């Protein structure tokens, strides 16, 4: 009961709460990160990553947690991301912030937005065999972290990411919150 229902809904509520408090559920925030006018999205994501990397790999090192990630398949990850970026700059939302936008009263997220996602899902399912399977097979490295793939201690990669994040935060320190 707790595992099946309570935990996911609780995490979802917290997720939506934080997205709305950071303003990411507003169209402007997403559009303006691509116009390089308001880097809140970047700051939000990089902070979340720095904190979560430390937490996850600390628990992992103590054997308390198992990693669970999708496969890395270079062409598909890049191409999918490139398609995704177009949609994100056109509509100013993404699947997670759409759900958050619904909660703050954005009707354009609730009706055409969700219908668009559902149509996209149907389209993907219909073209799955023809499109996804060949793309997925190109440069597929399986579900493993870069640390395992490159044979590097994961803390060295985390330290590198934190350094780059701090650099980005510094460069964009004067951009609006």
């Amino acid at each position: 009961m707790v595992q099946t229902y309570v935990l996911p809904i609780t995490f979802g509520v917290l997720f939506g709460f934080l997205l709305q408090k950071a303003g990411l559920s507003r169209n402007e925030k997403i559009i303006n990160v691509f116009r390089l006018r308001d880097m809140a999205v970047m700051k939000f994501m990089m902070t979340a990553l720095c904190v979560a990397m430390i937490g996850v790999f600390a628990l992992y090192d103590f054997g308390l947690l198992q990693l669970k990630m999708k496969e890395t398949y270079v062409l598909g990850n890049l191409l999918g991301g490139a398609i995704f970026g177009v949609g994100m700059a056109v509509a100013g939302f993404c699947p997670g912030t759409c759900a958050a936008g619904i909660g703050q009263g954005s009707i354009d997220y609730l009706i055409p937005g969700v219908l668009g996602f559902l149509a996209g899902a149907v389209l993907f399912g219909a073209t799955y065999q023809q499109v996804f399977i060949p793309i997925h097979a190109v440069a597929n490295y399986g579900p493993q972290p870069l640390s395992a793939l490159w044979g590097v201690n994961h803390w060295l990669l985390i330290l590198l990411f934190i350094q780059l994040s701090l650099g980005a935060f510094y460069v964009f320190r004067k951009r609006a919150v």
Partner: protein
Amino acid sequence: MHRSRSLAAVILTTLATLLALVALPAPALADCGADATSCKSCHEGQQKLPVNQSGLWHTQHSFGDFCANCHAGDTTAAEAPAAHAGMRPVLSDPNAACASCHAGTYETLAVTYTKTKSSSPPPKAAAKLPDTGSRNTLFVIINIAVLAALAGLVWAFERGPLGRFTVQTPSITPVRRSWNPLSIKRWSPYAAGAGLGVVAVAALWLSQQPLGSSGAYITMAGAGLKAAGAALSESTYFKFVSPPSLTWQLLLVAGVPLGALVSALWGRNFRVETAPDLWIRFFGEQRWKRWLAMFLGGIILEYGASIAGGCTSGLAIAGSLQLSGAGFLFIAGLFTTGLITAKVLYRGNW
């Protein structure tokens, strides 16, 4: 009056969605914490006998959870011995194994796979284990180099030639009149981001699940197709890869609007809007334009996310935080085209 009626509509819709979700069958849980049908999650996720890199048939089928279609076994059993009972040697009857999915072309497929099996497969992966010691040294050097570069960057901005590039945007500091952070309209992105980081760790730790959003829409679409009796609900994808059920991610995404509603009401910035101000400023008042853009944008977003294997939450955040290459590649792809598209759409005002 009008506003409160719209508010009621939003809340009712959310509740109705939640009720509809509960009507879907709940997944059974195996002792490893994965879905019972998820042979992959036990083998791949926990790295016990990972198989998806060995042999053509495995790599070509590693995208889904098809193990039982060929190997048989009991996919509803919660413990390993019971789950493995009744497994069959696949090549004893390759035709039968392939026919369960590829009704039309199974004969040629069976021939291909039998051939690949009899010729010894080329040794992969294990032969090329990287030398950990020298890689670590390399990354220590890279870290030191980056640190030096950052110091140089700060110097260039504070004392040197880059100083004039510092943008003096007046920072919009939120007015903090309240002692209660929950009622503050806008949090610093650093504070909210750190909070999300903690949530992401908790989800992986307590639920053994990465955050993610795009998958929930797939599940909903699959359920819709099934309810409508569409032929597509019988396709490989909607029947085997992503069958409609009450997934963990679906419940997560159902919680998101509730959390955002609480945040918006508490911060007094709940407002019913059919098009955002920035859009109206650039593209005019007509609502159909905005709604068309949202619909098309939604299709593009969901399609792209599905090709990549996840969205901003599932790949960019939940993937990257586990140092998955997929997450970083996805971020690179999305920022490249996002910047270009915004430049085209909001030209002159980029």
